[in-house]
């Protein structure tokens, strides 16, 4: 499986800059679980393998319900190129300063997001930033 699709769906990946907390919209995680049969079948994994991996993956992720970012959802719609990415942007805005780590940087309006305290980085860049302390 490409990490690109599932990474964005399962983790987002949002980092709260101050404490490096990994956060994700709870609703996305719920949908991921709701689709677990389909994902595991297409991925050639048993459902148990997939769910076990997902549990491990999410055990260090703070899942934020809609109430935690609902007030930023309308603003977020103007900062993404595809409305289905709005929950990630809204949560990033709610937790600003924060970082969206994604393989699909082009889906987000990076310059506008940066003005409101949200960086959008590709994973490799995010790691190098951490490494060099930028």
């Amino acid at each position, binding site marked *: *499986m*490409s*990490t*690109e*699709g*599932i*990474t*964005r*769906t*399962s*983790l987002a990946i949002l980092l709260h800059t*101050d*404490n*490096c907390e*990994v956060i994700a*919209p709870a*609703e*996305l995680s*719920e*949908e*991921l679980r*709701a*689709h677990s049969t*389909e*994902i595991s079948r*297409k*991925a*050639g*994994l*048993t459902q*148990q*393998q*997939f769910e*076990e*991996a997902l549990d*491990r*993956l*999410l*055990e*260090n*992720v703070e899942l934020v319900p*809609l109430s935690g970012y*609902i007030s930023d*959802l*309308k603003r977020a*719609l103007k900062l993404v190129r595809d*409305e*289905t*990415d*709005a*929950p990630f942007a809204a949560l990033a805005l709610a937790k600003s300063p924060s970082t969206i780590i994604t393989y699909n940087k082009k889906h987000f309006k990076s310059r506008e997001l940066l003005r409101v305290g949200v960086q959008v980085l590709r994973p490799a860049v995010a790691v190098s930033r*951490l*490494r060099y*302390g930028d």
Partner: protein
Amino acid sequence: MSCGTMVAETVPVEIPAEILELAERSGISREKMSAILRSFAVLEVLASSSKLSKKDADKLSREIKIAAWKRLSPYRH
């Protein structure tokens, strides 16, 4: 993680000291940094075990995002 018919192995991964030191200077404990990196490692193992192509993964990802957005979009105003 158990891997069914696959062989499960434990591979020790050393986190560079400079990253751990940077994390600690930023107020992030070594335990927390380790936990974050473990999450990403799980993702990589899952990815490498899967038969999904990038195209199929993207398609599935979009389906899931659309399903979530259907629930959330009524609250966008």
